[in-house]
């Protein structure tokens, strides 16, 4: 073949240039440290405000407001999706990278703290500590130090479909286990299930089994935190209650694959009369789908021992590898101020983690949710909380499908959980 007009070396120039770029790009992947460095502060935020436009506008306003209040600091709030949240965060923090500040929930803190990738935020909280709800601070505290500063509080409660209750001739929404058991046969005769449930392995037990456990007077971990406690009589009582409802058809069979997504589940589709861990956002969606008049928000469900629901603070944590700790603390302190708590609460439909700030609820059921806040339990913070959930969830499925009795299922999960806790460093 006749050689081309360009020489071999000139032909090689383009790929060599690409090679250089590739090497430079690869080099860019390594080294460095977390955050923006210098005067910059990077924040990872999630779509806490459901409307994407409102969410973007709100955090844009926060950026401008903070930079006005702290001239010379370059704040960058990066929006991250909820999907694969821990996967991305763990990868970033594990690589010594990630943002300076990140939004965290109480169930994330123990594990990240145990791995040494978070810095306490007590200094940023300062004198404002007394103004916060003690339960909100306790949920974010580990080994006596605060690892995320609460900036909002969520709450869940019971949600009923008035039309379906009326179809079964039920006038008083069932708010206790006993009332729920009594209503189940009547609702079944009317062709609907009673209670929605999420038993998927990806559904947080904080929104499914644990509230039933707490209502029965049980706990997930014992006082020492070195053993599980859900296998006790209270746990068996809670799981027996759930299994009985499932076997009778009062909990729909789709529960096995449900993952706490209101619109994707039988409750959202008006096939079930009630849920017991529904958020204000669920109530708003229900009003759109079912019609405003059909939505009832009740108090937290009461079990044989307690009336308790789930609700937790969301807070800002600081990356232990941050190169601008001072800037990060300034931002955390800025977001904890009453003005920011109130504006975020209004924009996202949240409640205030501060006792001296009341967010004026704008939703149709704000009063009911405000009342439910008194019963909102943020869960039991433990560094193995998520691992234990991963061990317990399949056993709950085994009880629902009849493969094991509630007692056997919980005993198997407790055995695996205790072995895991014994392995913990």
């Amino acid at each position, binding site marked *: 073949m006749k050689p081309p007009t360009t020489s071999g070396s000139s032909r090689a120039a383009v790929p060599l240039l690409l090679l250089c770029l590739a090497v430079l790009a690869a080099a860019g992947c390594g080294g460095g440290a977390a955050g923006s460095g210098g005067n910059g502060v990077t924040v990872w935020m999630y779509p806490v405000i459901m409307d994407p436009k409102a969410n973007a506008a709100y955090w844009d306003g926060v950026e401008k407001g903070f930079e006005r209040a702290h001239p010379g600091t370059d704040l960058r709030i990066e929006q991250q999706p909820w999907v694969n949240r821990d996967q991305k965060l*763990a990868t970033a923090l594990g690589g010594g990278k990630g943002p300076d500040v990140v939004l965290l929930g109480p169930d994330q803190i123990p594990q990240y703290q145990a*791995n040494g990738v978070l810095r306490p935020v007590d200094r940023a909280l300062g004198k404002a500590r007394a103004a916060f709800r003690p339960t909100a601070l306790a949920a974010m505290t580990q080994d006596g130090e605060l690892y995320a500063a609460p900036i909002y509080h969520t709450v869940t409660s019971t949600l009923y479909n008035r039309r379906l209750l009326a179809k079964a001739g039920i006038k008083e929404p069932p708010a206790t286990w006993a009332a729920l058991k009594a209503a189940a046969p009547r609702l079944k005769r009317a062709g609907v299930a009673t209670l929605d449930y999420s038993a998927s392995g990806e559904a947080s037990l904080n929104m499914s089994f644990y509230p039933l456990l707490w209502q029965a007077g049980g706990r997930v971990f014992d006082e020492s935190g070195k053993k599980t406690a859900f296998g006790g009589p209270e746990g068996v009582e809670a799981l027996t209650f759930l299994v009985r409802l499932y076997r009778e058809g009062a909990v729909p069979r789709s529960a*096995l*694959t449900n993952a706490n997504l209101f619109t994707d589940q039988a409750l959202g589709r008006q096939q079930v009369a009630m849920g017991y861990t529904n958020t204000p956002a669920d109530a708003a969606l229900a009003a759109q789908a079912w019609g405003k008049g059909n939505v009832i928000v009740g108090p937290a469900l009461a079990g044989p021992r307690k009336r308790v629901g789930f609700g937790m603070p969301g807070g800002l944590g600081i990356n232990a590898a941050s190169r601008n700790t001072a800037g990060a603390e300034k931002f955390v302190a800025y977001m904890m101020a009453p003005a920011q708590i109130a504006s975020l609460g209004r924009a996202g439909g949240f409640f205030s983690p501060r006792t001296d700030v009341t967010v004026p609820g704008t939703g149709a059921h704000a009063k009911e949710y405000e009342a439910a806040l008194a019963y909102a339990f943020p869960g039991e913070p433990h560094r193995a909380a998520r691992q234990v959930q991963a061990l317990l969830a399949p056993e709950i499925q085994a009880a629902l499908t009849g493969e094991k009795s509630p007692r056997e299922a919980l005993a198997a999960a407790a055995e695996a959980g205790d072995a895991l806790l014994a392995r913990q460093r």
Partner: protein
Amino acid sequence: MSRVESRETPPEEEPEARGPADHQGPGPGGADSPASPVAVAAPPGDRTIPPVTVPAPPVATTAPAPPPAGRSRWGRMSAARRREALAGLAFVAPMLVLFLVFRIGPTLGAVFLSLTDYRLNGDWTFIGAGNYARLLDDRLFWEAFGVTALYTVLYVPMTVVLALGTAVLLHRTLWLRGFFRGLFFLPYVTSIVLAAVIWKWIYEVEDGLLNSVLGGLGLGPVDFLGSESLVLPSIAAASAWKGFGYSMLILLAGLQSVPREVTEAAVIDGANGWQRFRWVTLPLLRPVLFFVLVIEAIGAFQVFDAMYVMTAGGPVRASYSLVYFLYDSGFKFFDFGYACAVGLVLFLVVLVFSLIQRRLVGREVD
């Protein structure tokens, strides 16, 4: 793909026997290349179809001359050839660097991590084979391994039968062939998450499409994703729908490379359509078919997304695969050393499949 391409070119001498790139071996039809017949299997006991004989492509019999001793290959090259070789290397280099940085590097990193107790903050302790020893005693690991193996056994035949069936139909159809080919390939380029969500709706026990159809027939409802015995076949069927397009294209290419004379000879010998397919086409398609089987098996062993979206590994871990176990170990338990050990075991399994494929398909083509 290279194996498919090799079906379209006549077999030549052993690759190892080739000389440098500019070696000019005897080409097809060379004077010293006697054609030997290749017998295609006939159905046992069927006397109506004698074995079909196909003239084999010419086979080289002369080995290339050995290189002169004392000088390296580089030293024997002319300046122009050297420039050309350097240019070739430069063209390959960017991809090679990317491959080393993003494939080989992380793999070696995973080997190292699998020998450590690695913490999220970067602290690590060397524990030797500790993670591997733990794997052997981990009931969850073996459960996940069993689920993955069973899924592979279900998924691979489903996909290959579906792919072969559609490839044969497309091969025989001339009318709108391109349109149908695109249509059948469409699920393959669809997002697996999207496909899994749609299939979850189809399988739903309360008002899913399948149960609505079954209800119309007075059957069901069947809890496809809530039953421990049905969940794997259901996910395998959904994944087969999603994945058969790729194998279909490979098999179609294989079918199109079957020499027309062979099937014509079988027609002359009186073979009907099924006999031609079973005893002529299928044996000639065997290397391609085997390639597809191995590729699909490798893919099946890495299943994760469909299970994550459709069942989250349930019910009672009946759809909890090896990659799901790896994912949980890494991103739920933050046990990265252990997760890397799982990854390397998976790598070994896939490597075994690949070696089998290389050995058996290679032998078939040679």
